[in-house]
């Protein structure tokens, strides 16, 4: 979507470098600044519903549930990767931003610690926010006590 503003990602990145008094992008590199801009856009969109769009799909006979992240994946994206998040965290902890390889990290924190924390955090968020949703259908015999293991 072009044309909302006349400011490109590259220009805004440079502007932010200037505000940080780091025009050479020594202390805050361009990828690090871009991570911060992307998070700002996502958070802005999540809280304001700023971007809205219309998508089309088809209902199928006999199918009662439709997951729009599946039906309209370009609009309801789930694309952020483990590598990207690991890098983000490495930047914020002043560690070498080499992702899950952990190459060049100091002894302050290990990449294993970061990866384990991400794993737990993902499931903590799912439990606390009650998203994302899945649908399961299981055949059950007649459990005499009515207890069904999921």
């Amino acid at each position, binding site marked *: *979507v*072009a044309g909302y503003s006349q*400011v*490109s*990602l590259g220009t*805004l990145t440079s502007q932010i470098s200037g*505000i*940080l008094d780091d025009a050479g992008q020594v202390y*805050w590199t361009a990828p690090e600044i871009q991570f*911060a801009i992307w*998070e*700002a*856009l*996502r958070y802005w*969109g*999540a*809280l*304001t*519903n700023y971007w809205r*769009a*219309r*998508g089309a799909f*088809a*209902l*199928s*006979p*006999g199918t009662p*549930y439709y997951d729009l992240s599946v039906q309209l994946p370009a609009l*309801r994206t*789930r694309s*952020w*990767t483990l590598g990207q*998040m690991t890098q983000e965290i490495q930047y*914020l*902890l002043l560690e070498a931003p080499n992702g899950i390889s*952990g190459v060049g990290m100091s002894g*302050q924190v290990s990449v294993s610690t970061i990866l384990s*924390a*991400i*794993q*737990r*955090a*993902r499931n903590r*968020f*799912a439990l606390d926010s*009650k*998203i*994302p949703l*899945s*649908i*399961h*259908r299981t055949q*059950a015999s*007649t*459990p005499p006590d*009515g*207890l*069904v*293991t*999921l």
Partner: protein
Amino acid sequence: MLFTSESSGNWSVPGTWAQPGIPGPGDTIQINPGNVVTLTSSLSVGDAGPSAVVIELGGVLALTANITLTIYGAVIDLGDIDLALGATLNFASGPPPVPPVPIPAPIFVHRASWQDAFSGIWTNLWREDAWSVDRANPLWTVEPGMPREYSEAELSPLQLQLSPPPANAGSLEIITVDPLLIDITNPSATFNLPDEWIHAVKWAALAEILSSDSQINDPLRAKYAEHRYQQSVTFARDARSILRTLVNNIPLPLDSLASIDAGNPFWRNSSGPPSLAGVLYDFLIPVDVPDQAYGVTSDVVESAPIPLTPASFLPIGEEDLAHIVDYALHVLLFKCGGDEFTSTMSLYDGFMNAIAMRKGVNLAKIRYLTPLFGQVQKESQERPDRIEQEVGT
């Protein structure tokens, strides 16, 4: 994935290897000079390639007694392989077996329904607790019938207690929240979470890391990260993604799924042209169940279109660009900690004030949406699984 030894030690200890995790089926290994790696339980390894197992000069692979190491592919042995009594090396041909992917059990059940196999009838099951079911009918356990309620047994993995016990076999259909086992060896692994909430995971991870009992400990930033996580959870529970839906170009009234269940617990048995729809975050549930194919258009909250290249334009108006800059600056100063970071709190406050103003504009412009905000929250209140309580009360 290639695992290279970093020090001497047990194969199954992550610190023995330079990469995260431990090598298993399908992985290749390299034991570096001076490292003695000891395998204490049977295992298969290798990718059927020309260097499945490499032992460098001065490196040692030691197998303890009575275990078998099955290797798919070639071994380059410049060091030593020590086999204790009864230990064997098995050189296998063909492709390595694909390890089964464990499927974790759900951690929360949003909704459950039951279909009796004999009659084919579906019914919604109401969330209850075992005590109230016992109170209502102490003999329910010996009086099978069509289940009406479910309760979550305090067991792991999660179990559902159906009451009354089903008289016939049937199908259980559940909408759940599932945990995810992330493949930590794959940088492209995704979180199966909407991109707009992915930052919450980052803040929760940072809160854990920065509050750990290690050199990285920083109570100030840990507290901030935890606050950001909690704030994001609150917002996510209040969020909506489906704004409007038309079937064959005719608008459908939208309501929460809990309300539809309350109005007609047997809606799942009716098929025909949909006349309304339940929504539960990214789920759309047309009622009646479609009897044929229908074209649908849905207006949704779109995940922020992210500019990926330096030449891409920011997809936001000039009037709001300053708020994006404020937020980015605030996050970028996080790594500095201390006063440098806290001095940027006003930038975050400004960002949140701008959001509040924008939400007010939305509410005024799209008044009919108001009842549909906070759907996850509403579902949770109508089918509560947790009562917020102060610790110690």
